[in-house]
């Protein structure tokens, strides 16, 4: 056996899963067992293949007898693609546990949808993601990329009876293709200088700094757009929430990561010789993306939309870490640059785990309470205790709190940023800590956002009837969430061991492993040296649990009786559910402080008593916080494109004579050019 065998199992599993789902509409059981069962096998195989190469360190390559006659499809599995293959595989495995129960939603009633479409495109989407990370030539890469984009378009448009979903899906398709064109041109630059479409030749290409920068700019634009970087993010919060929840988990959890894979592969591997100026661009974009992403997330009340904006924030963190890495690599500080790359990869893994978990949790709420609006939720910790526990872990991890996984990568990013004094340029020395402060602000705002999510959805009392009668979801769905929650904990407390494994990637790309980070054994994480900074996640966990347990034991041995009473209501009588803080109320202070960030539309309608105008009968308050990028960027561009189209449209007279003369003159012009 070799890793390649598992790769083939994964690919064939996904393909078979696509084929069997053709029977899903007649026999829904086909979708539930065959389709998701094959996906589970495929996901597990992908994890095995990825980890094998990541740990074993020997890249494997193969050629498939498909594609163009002179350009067969090249597959290559090295440490970098191994990691991403394993991440994709993990999420695929989780959703294949989750899917069978969740897709029952689409069998009956007003949600009834074609299961063929769901099964077919889910499997093709996954197949596309596998192939993107496995591709070793630009041709296969672009085909796989398009397969991923187009298949996910159908999934976004799955519930197409709502006009908003169709609009979101179209926007998604449009942006995916603008991004695709940029990436294609980027590959074009490399292929032009390298003399071929295989990555092998592109690596060997000798580029001048200008051309390398052009290639970088194209790749950064294209992959950044697909990853949801501000200001090219507008499609993401529209498209991700409207897909079925397990697809949202895949899109936010891993599809964005596949785009980042493309960026890392393109910049660190194919271009290779990096410039620090690129890093600066990436760092500043990343920091802005982080801050705007979390601010937009904070004020959303639709849970899935909030999570989608939070994905933008996390992509920003990853881009910041990658930017730091490029800056340090470009200025010759190899070891620190490697640490930046490790921080980015760690956050990629972490975000796949916790964002997957949170989307699956949001799906679980939707499944049992049919509710996406936080303002209608509440008290779910009593109705869905296990989902509540998993979601708590997810919220803690995404808020970047020790000792869970989100914290490790943020800590590493800060550690890299703190090495700024080693740089020559005063501008960089000032800008890097400043962006680090922006990251700190974003991390704190992310904590506030996820207090809102958890506190409003799971704590307090139910704000609507459906939520009051919600039931815990089935075993498969819980198992999927449990798997990812355990991942969040394990990746949080064993950073040294995991970084030791991840070290194979920078070793392959840059020729340097992060040796100092793990030099003090599995218990300690020491990015530079034990003197500079150290963090021991296992000891932190032991101490936290130990002290809390000790306190509990000491106070419980001679505990006095505990009794239940009414909460304090100022003596006015019964507290009702309408008196609770709502999601909107919770984020109101942040709203006020950062008001210029959004396009705020606030409307207060007061109805007064006709006879006594000082007596207010009812108040209706409406607050909309719109994404400013629409009014400042997209709409002007849209108008410009339309105006241009109208101008060109003037050529279109509708008379065949005119068209014939156009052809004639074009022909003449071409002949003149040729001669």
């Amino acid at each position, binding site marked *: 056996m070799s890793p390649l065998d598992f790769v083939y199992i994964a690919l064939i599993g996904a393909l078979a899963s696509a084929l069997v789902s053709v029977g899903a509409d007649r026999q829904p059981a086909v979708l539930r067992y065959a389709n998701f069962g094959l996906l589970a096998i495929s996901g597990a195989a992908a994890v095995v293949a990825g980890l094998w190469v990541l740990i074993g360190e020997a890249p494997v390559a193969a050629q498939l007898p498909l594609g163009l006659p002179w350009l067969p499809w090249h597959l290559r599995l090295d440490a970098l693609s191994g990691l991403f293959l394993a991440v994709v595989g993990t999420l695929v495995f989780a959703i294949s546990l989750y899917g069978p129960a969740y897709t029952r939603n689409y069998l009956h009633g007003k949600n009834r949808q074609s299961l063929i479409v769901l099964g077919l495109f889910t499997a093709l989407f996954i197949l596309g993601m596998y192939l993107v990370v496995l591709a070793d030539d630009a041709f296969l890469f672009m085909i796989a990329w398009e397969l991923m984009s187009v298949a996910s378009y159908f999934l976004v448009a799955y519930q197409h009876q709502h006009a908003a979903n169709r609009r979101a899906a179209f926007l998604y398709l449009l942006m995916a293709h603008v991004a695709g064109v940029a990436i294609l041109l980027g590959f074009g630059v490399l292929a032009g200088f390298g003399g071929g479409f295989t990555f092998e030749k592109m690596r060997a290409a000798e580029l001048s700094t200008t051309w390398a920068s052009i290639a970088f700019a194209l790749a950064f634009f294209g992959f950044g757009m697909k990853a949801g970087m501000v200001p090219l993010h507008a499609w993401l919060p529209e498209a991700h929430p409207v897909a079925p929840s397990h697809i949202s988990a895949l899109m936010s959890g891993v599809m964005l990561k596949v785009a980042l894979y493309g960026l890392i592969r393109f910049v660190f591997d194919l271009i290779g010789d990096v410039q620090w100026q690129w890093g600066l661009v990436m760092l500043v974009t990343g920091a802005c993306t982080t801050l705007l992403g979390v601010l937009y997330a904070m004020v959303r009340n639709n849970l899935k939309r909030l999570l989608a904006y939070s994905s933008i924030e996390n992509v920003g963190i990853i881009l910041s870490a990658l930017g730091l890495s490029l800056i340090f690599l470009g200025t010759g500080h190899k070891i620190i640059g490697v640490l930046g790359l490790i921080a980015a990869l760690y956050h990629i893994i972490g975000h796949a785990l916790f964002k997957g978990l949170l989307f699956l949790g949001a799906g679980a709420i939707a499944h049992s309470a049919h509710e996406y609006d936080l303002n209608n939720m509440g*008290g779910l*910790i009593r109705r869905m205790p296990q989902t509540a526990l998993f979601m708590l872990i997810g919220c803690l991890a995404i808020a970047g*709190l020790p000792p869970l996984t989100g914290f490790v990568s943020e800590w590493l990013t800060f550690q890299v940023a703190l090495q700024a004094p080693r740089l020559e340029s005063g501008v960089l020395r000032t800008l890097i800590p400043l962006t680090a402060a922006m990251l*700190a602000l974003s991390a704190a705002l992310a904590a506030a956002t996820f207090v809102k999510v958890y506190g409003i959805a799971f704590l307090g009392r139910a704000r609507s009837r459906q939520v009051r009668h919600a039931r815990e979801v089935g075993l498969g769905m819980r198992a999927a969430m449990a798997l990812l929650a355990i991942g969040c904990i394990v990746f949080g407390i064993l950073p040294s061991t995991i970084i030791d494994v991840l070290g194979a990637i920078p070793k392959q790309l840059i020729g340097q492993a992060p040796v100092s980070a793990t030099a003090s054994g599995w218990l300690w994480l020491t990015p530079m040296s034990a*003197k500079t900074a150290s963090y021991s996640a296992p000891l932190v966990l032991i101490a*936290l649990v130990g002290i809390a347990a000790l306190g*509990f034991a000491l106070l419980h041995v001679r505990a006095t009786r505990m009794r239940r009473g009414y909460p304090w209501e100022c003596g006015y009588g019964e507290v009702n559910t309408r008196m609770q803080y709502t999601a909107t109320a919770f984020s109101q202070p942040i709203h006020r402080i950062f008001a210029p960030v959004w396009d705020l539309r606030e409307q207060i309608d007061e109805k007064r008593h006709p006879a006594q105008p000082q007596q207010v009968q009812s108040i209706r308050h409406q607050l909309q916080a719109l994404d400013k990028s629409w009014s400042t960027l997209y709409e002007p561009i849209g108008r410009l494109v339309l105006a241009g189209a109208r101008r060109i449209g003037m050529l279109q007279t509708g008379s065949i004579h005119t068209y014939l003369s156009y052809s004639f003159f074009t022909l003449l012009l071409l002949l003149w050019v040729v001669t």
Partner: protein
Amino acid sequence: MIESLPLPIDAAWLLAVVQTLLFVFVAPLLSGWIKRIKCHMQNRAAPSVFQPYRDLAKLLRKHTVLAENASWLFRFTPYLVFAATILAAAVVPLIALQLPTAQIADVIVLVGFLALARFFLALAGLDIGTAFGGMGASREMMIGALAEPVLMMTAFTVSMSAATTNLSEAMGYTLSSGLVLRPSFLFAALGLMLVAVAETGRVPVDNPATHLELTMVHEAMILEYTGRHLALIEWASKIKLMVYLVLIANLFLPWGIATELTLAELGKGTVAIAGKLILLGMALVVWETVMAKMRIFRVPPYLGFAFLLSLLGMLTHVVLETGG
């Protein structure tokens, strides 16, 4: 000290545990001291400095009343908050440098511990489903979100000078570089002081002594806690106050702290930190007496000013002190 970081079993670890226990048990005394001075300052009859111990003991003995729809999270929070705050106390050098606990977590993780405690307190505030809890949680998270970057900038300024985020090493650096006036440290210290006031819920940001509905922040969040749960939370907030004061004292004026683990040095360290805390407590009292409580939306400009100070600190470090 230890380049290879051995497994945690030796005398230094024992001393570290003792220091942490000292930290935890002295924290109420510091609160008592601050309260006493404050009463004197405001011409009121002062309670004994040991009053906080009596309050805690009484709370620990009392019956616990839970609100009717409190979930397990509400009961679990006090223990977690207490544990996270103790961990924060454990990594701050109090009387001696070079203790191994400072290596478990650096200053960024310290901020993380405090954020963890705040996260759970805010959740507990939302758990009961009353307006007070929600209001407290929302405001506390707002203040926390604005205070955290200031704290980080301060930490960055110090750790960029000292080239370490390890608190013990950073204090050692200040100690070894002698009594020089660094403008960056001055700005950073001022920023840290402003944040400390905001984060520990003191006047002018919040008032720990009031239960007036519209002005409460921290107290609103924990309004439903009683008995031993309340005791743990109150104790944790006293420890948190002391963490901030010790941080200010030892990061910027570490002189007197024990650098070797001998009895004489440790004695000197104890006296030094006691003196510094007494003085800092008095400074806090003066500050709290001359300031009036702010409206909640005055707090963002206040924290913005603190951020500006710490930013200036960082910039002066980059511009003046590294010769770039």
